[in-house]
């Protein structure tokens, strides 16, 4: 691009910026209560956030006595470190809590987190291009979807799994809307998962034990019955698996962030970009400059707002999920969420046009209406038309559409993006964050981003090397 052309584009962008801003005027959105529509939300953001959140570089550590090899086996990853071995990874057997034998459908953790070649996530859709339809990923689909006719298309074509987030809450009846509410969500790549503050796309998994337990309940059998006694009998396996998962890192140097006594800890905290190699791939001068500009844009628009964890670039705010250490992971005192979740408008956008009504069987569907608590104590009966995110776990209106801020290392290899795989490329991601959909979103209003096309291109170049 010539200097003249670039200048023209910048001038055009500058002229258009006010128009863009004007076009992003507040839209009350479909979820607002009648009496609150059009009103600016209150300034304080603590409404549903954990009051013990701290901006502290602090991560969970696995049990040092845990057996990594055993954890790998329980995960379902073979000794070769690449392929699946289900021999130690299936949960079946007689369970008093379940009310009889728990039948395994053959799925393991590996089924949806397919090894290092896929960053321990799923490949790019369509999945059937690389995974045969005879794989337990497909043959076990009713464990997640319970016969939902949308499930196979959404899994194969979009890489999305149906999650009924409170499916295994026995204190709520079968027809309780909290038992029925669901989201279509990706299987998260697990590389660097040990640096997360809250697990799963909405952060509702406070610790790895309950996250893994939920996965075994949800994906390995078709009923809504729990089998806690089987889990308890293999409790140490969960510590082992956590140790294995926390060892999945994009760069071993990052592990120093887990230990404040590590000699490299301070340096990694003080220079948030220390492990980012700006010269990777022997870049041209022009590319070097683009990366530098992109880094600056990232620092201002992304690190300064939401992606503020040094080196990892997820969100730093966290609370110690197990408190002062008196409690094991089995009894987490803090209710969701143990990190800060954001609504950036992706859920409301529902780019794939996903259906969020309850499948009644025989092709019939019914609305799901969830009673959510407003901050003044009144009840908001919310009809679900898009993924309500964290609100399904907290029961709070303020949490509609909130999801976890993902870590960004190895980002170029983690496509597609967002919780619903609605951005195929980094270019689409960056373009979204300059859109009205983002800037009108709850957190977009707080952290607005307006990048010109050339700035977007520079930012993409930087993101590619994370």
């Amino acid at each position, binding site marked *: 691009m010539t200097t003249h052309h670039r200048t023209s584009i910048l001038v055009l962008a500058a002229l258009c910026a006010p128009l863009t801003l004007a076009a992003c005027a507040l839209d009350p959105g479909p979820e607002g209560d009648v009496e609150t529509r059009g*009103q600016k939300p209150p300034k304080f953001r603590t409404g549903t956030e954990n*009051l013990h959140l701290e901006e502290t570089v602090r991560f969970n550590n696995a049990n040092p006595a845990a057996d990594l090899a055993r954890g790998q086996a329980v995960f379902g990853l073979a000794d070769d470190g690449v392929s699946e071995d289900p021999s130690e990874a299936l949960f079946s057997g007689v369970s*008093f809590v379940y009310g009889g034998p728990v039948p395994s459908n053959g799925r393991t953790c590996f089924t949806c987190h397919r090894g290092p070649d896929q960053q321990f996530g799923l490949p790019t859709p369509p999945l059937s291009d690389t995974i045969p339809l005879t794989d337990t990923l497909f043959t076990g689909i009713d464990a997640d979807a319970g016969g939902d006719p949308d499930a196979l298309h959404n899994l194969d074509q979009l890489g999305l799994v149906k999650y009924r987030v409170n499916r295994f809450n026995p*204190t709520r009846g079968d027809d309780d809307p909290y038992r029925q509410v669901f989201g279509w969500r990706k299987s998260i790549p697990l590389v660097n998962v040990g640096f997360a503050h809250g697990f799963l796309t909405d952060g509702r998994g406070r610790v790895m034990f309950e996250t893994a337990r939920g996965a075994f309940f949800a994906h390995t059998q078709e009923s809504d019955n729990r089998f*806690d006694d089987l889990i308890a009998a293999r409790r140490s396996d969960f510590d082992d698996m956590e140790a294995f998962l926390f060892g999945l890192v994009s760069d071993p140097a990052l592990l120093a962030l887990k230990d404040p006594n590590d000699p490299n800890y301070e340096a990694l905290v003080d220079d948030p970009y220390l492990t980012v190699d700006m010269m990777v791939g022997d870049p041209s001068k022009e590319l070097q400059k683009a990366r530098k500009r992109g880094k600056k844009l990232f620092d201002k628009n992304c690190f300064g707002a939401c992606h503020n964890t040094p080196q990892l670039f997820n969100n730093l705010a966290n609370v110690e999920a197990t*408190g*002062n250490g008196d409690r094991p992971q089995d009894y987490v005192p803090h209710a969701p969420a143990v990190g800060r979740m954001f609504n950036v408008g992706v859920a409301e956008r529902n780019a794939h046009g996903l259906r969020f009504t309850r499948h009644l069987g025989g092709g019939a569907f019914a609305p799901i209406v969830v009673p959510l608590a407003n901050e*003044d*104590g009144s009840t908001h009966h919310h009809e679900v038309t898009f993924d309500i995110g964290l609100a399904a776990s907290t029961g709070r209106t303020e949490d509609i559409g909130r999801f976890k801020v993902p870590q960004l290392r190895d980002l170029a290899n983690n496509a597609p993006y967002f919780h619903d795989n609605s951005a195929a490329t980094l270019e689409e991601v960056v373009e979204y964050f300059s859109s009205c959909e983002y800037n009108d979103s709850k957190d977009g209003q707080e952290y607005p981003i307006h990048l010109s096309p050339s700035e977007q291109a520079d930012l993409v170049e930087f993101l590619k090397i994370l």
Partner: protein
Amino acid sequence: MAGMDWFKSGKGPLYGLVAVAIALSSSTALAKPMAPYSKGDVEKGELGLSLYRGNANPFEITSPVTPNNCGSTMDLVLKWDAEENTLDVHLSGDRSLEPYPNLYRTEGVDFFPNPFHPEAKDVEGGRYQLWLISASGPLLNFYYDMNTAELLGSELDFEVPPANAIPVAFPTLYLVPTAFFQPKNAQGDVNYKQTWEYDNMIRGDRADLSHFYITFPPPNLCFANPFRLDLSLLRPYLSDPRPASEARPWSDYLRGGLLFDVTAEPEEYYHEPPRATFFGMYMGTTAVGGGVPNGWKLDIDAAFMGVAPPIRPWHGAGKCEQTFEPMHTLPEPINFCALMAQAAQ
């Protein structure tokens, strides 16, 4: 008052409507609730929230009604500084509490005697305490008779484990109270302040004692399913207060997530060493993100079982009447021992 900026910032239109509604219904001018906030960290920081009736009720607690408190709330602000070794607590409220209250319960209706929770049935000429409660107590071993499956007590009740006992571990909470206080006037306005030593959280009413532990173990193991607490018969267990030498630092409480409870206590100690009485005037919690909105309550089953969502509407909301949080049992308790015996045949 510290935190007033946040107080002001929380006066959204909805809060205004609620306050107006409350004021109209009670014909009194009441303070608007405080939007929950926090700042700082474990070493130095501040936390503020409003306390509401029924907000974090445990099983078998009574939420009384006194002449002014139906629509009232209380505001709580805590400030701590580890370096200064202080924790300042400020509890305030307009027309929130009745001085020297007389409160009554009926045995078999809203009072069920419990050897592991000795308390006065009624309170006459009462006084108040604010309890700071950590949601993150340790696991305690409880002992059950091998033959009858009856609860014998916890590891805090026995120097050595009783013979032929089955040990079962349950998670606990621990709590420590302020000194006793009364409203500052006949209208029931409250403006109570207390300062603790950050590293020495002893009872405000008794310098020789510190926290005690509370949990809800089954009184008989046969009527409990450890994986289905919702189907189990559970009752309160309160340990004796620990000696002052075992006082915990404020950081232990803070890191574990907090609950708060203003209780009405008898004019004299009912039990020695003293514990707590289950007349809960106002409550709140930070163990649930953002606290629990007014009219809702912490779902203790959900909290113990690790399921979501952790809040439910409170059945006493909007009613100006004494409200009892029922005993945790089914209409017909399930005998899981009998079920397992059947399953084994």
